[in-house]
């Protein structure tokens, strides 16, 4: 264990960050690979959408249990178990990718690993960081999702021509083995629970419930459009704009890189709840406008739209993670956070499937983008209402 004099356990700090990045890699490695896999195996678009959505179902049902597991004494065993689970899942997928049923089963097993690491990663980072480094920890750990996406995209771009889509699954196997080794060599303190286990006396007031409902609705609607975008964007770029699948990944990476750069300062800037909600509003405005810009078939507009989307998509989730603290404070943070995550998981579930169905029904991409713009703008009104609820009276 590498503990410095300031009290930060850097070994666990980076371990928490990397397992979260690995979780994002597991989920989003599908995005760059999907166009090629669709060509090779002709999956039904709705089933292909379910390859992503299954992550949401597993996350939705497992999250409360994971909080309890992480608060127990067997954290190391839990991490080892889910790493073995992801190793087996990806190994099976490589050899039986022609079957959409086996692929779906494999993605389900990966989703268990994702669900544990998506909660466990930030919790471990938060516990490992001292007070001094906690804002930095929040800033850095909020980049886990785009970092995982970026790694999968870059790996695909560099190696797909020679090895095909399965190279990402081999990367996944290598990642699982590396993390297994890291886990075995690390000494784990008990991470704090991400749930309310052990705090039965805490309860939310009616006003807090209503504010959380607003925040959860924002997360839900935002997640629908974000996960639809992340799953189907490369397919749109190859099918509609005529890009080669490998070139499409470059286009896809542009907003993802911007997301990473937007994540850290937003994490650091959230010194008060007011700032959190204003950042949330600004992020939603930028992202909604980027959908509208995407409707215009002008190359400059399209590039601006991609950058704007990345900025918005960097600001919004980082601000949403700060919302529970703005609404209920630190004491009831975990309870509020788990409520909000249900909205996220429902969005993760619905987004890819809805677009998959739209593609099967031959609905135009322009209509899809218009609906996505509206879906991003509705939470904007909710964000305004939330600000008014929390800060208009004093």
């Amino acid at each position: 264990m590498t503990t410095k004099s300031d009290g930060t356990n850097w070994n666990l700090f980076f371990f928490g960050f990397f397992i979260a990045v690995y979780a994002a890699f597991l989920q989003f490695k599908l995005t760059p690979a999907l166009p090629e896999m669709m060509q090779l195996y002709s999956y039904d678009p709705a089933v292909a959408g379910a390859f992503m959505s299954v992550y949401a179902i597993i996350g939705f049902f497992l999250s409360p249990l994971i909080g309890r597991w992480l608060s127990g004494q067997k954290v190391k065993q839990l991490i080892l178990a889910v790493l073995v689970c992801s190793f087996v899942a990806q190994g099976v997928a490589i050899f039986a990718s022609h079957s959409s049923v086996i692929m779906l089963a494999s993605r389900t097993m990966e989703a268990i690993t994702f669900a544990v690491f998506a909660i466990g990663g930030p919790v471990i980072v938060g516990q490992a960081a001292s007070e001094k480094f906690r804002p930095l920890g929040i800033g850095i750990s909020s980049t886990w999702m785009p970092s995982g996406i970026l790694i999968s995209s870059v790996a695909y771009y560099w190696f797909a021509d020679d090895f095909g889509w399965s190279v990402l699954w081999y990367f996944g196997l290598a990642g699982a083995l590396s993390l297994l080794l890291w886990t075995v060599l690390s000494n784990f303190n008990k991470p704090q629970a991400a749930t309310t286990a052990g705090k039965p006396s805490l309860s939310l007031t009616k006003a807090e419930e209503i504010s959380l409902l607003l925040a959860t609705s924002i997360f839900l609607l935002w997640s629908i459009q974000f996960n639809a975008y992340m799953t189907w964007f490369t397919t749109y770029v190859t099918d509609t704009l005529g890009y080669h699948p490998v070139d499409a990944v470059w286009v896809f990476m542009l907003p993802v890189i911007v997301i990473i750069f937007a994540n850290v300062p937003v994490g650091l800037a959230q010194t008060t709840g007011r700032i959190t909600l204003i950042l949330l509003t600004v992020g939603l405005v930028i992202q909604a406008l980027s959908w509208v810009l995407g409707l215009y078939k002008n190359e400059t507009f399209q590039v601006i739209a991609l950058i704007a989307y990345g900025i918005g998509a960097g600001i919004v989730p980082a601000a949403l993670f700060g919302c529970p603290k703005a609404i209920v404070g630190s004491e009831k943070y975990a309870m509020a956070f788990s409520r909000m995550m249900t909205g996220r998981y429902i969005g993760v579930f619905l987004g890819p499937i809805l677009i998959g169905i739209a593609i099967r029904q031959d609905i135009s991409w322009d209509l899809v983008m218009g609906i996505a713009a509206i879906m991003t703008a509705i939470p904007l009104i909710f964000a305004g209402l939330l600000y008014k609820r929390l800060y208009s009276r004093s």
Partner: protein
Amino acid sequence: MPTETKSYHYHRPGLHGDLVLGISGLCAGLVFTFAALETRFLFFLFLVVTTLALYFSANSLRRYWIEIQTDDKGIKLLSRGSEKCLIKWSEVKSIKLRFFGSKSQREKGKGTLSLTMTDQNKAKIAFESGLVDFDELARLCFEQTQDSSVEMDAVSVGNFEAVGVRL
């Protein structure tokens, strides 16, 4: 009778909240409108929504500059420090206090009250319960106009009782 000039401003955190909500609604309305450019009905529907949000935002912004002043002579409405309207207590013709909100909001003391005073020359001053010390100002307006024959309907009488005026 008030012996000194007293000023009333709108509650700043309340105005910030209204402005954030207004601008959010305005941006959302613009996105809706542009996203629905191809569908005439939706386009006009969203245009109306956007216009309403624009009005709400502009009205919220305007209230930052509004100041109500009272003294022993009358009541003044100022905007950015300059006088926009003056009504002398002795010339008040009608006074109206309206409640906007649901029944349950009324029971909880929420919702919005709006007080409108008109004089014989049809000059009008209106302000809402977003003003700091609104109840005090409403009571003052009521008391100052009791000597003259001011028109007041039954609804207003009930609302004045709600803000603590003893009739």
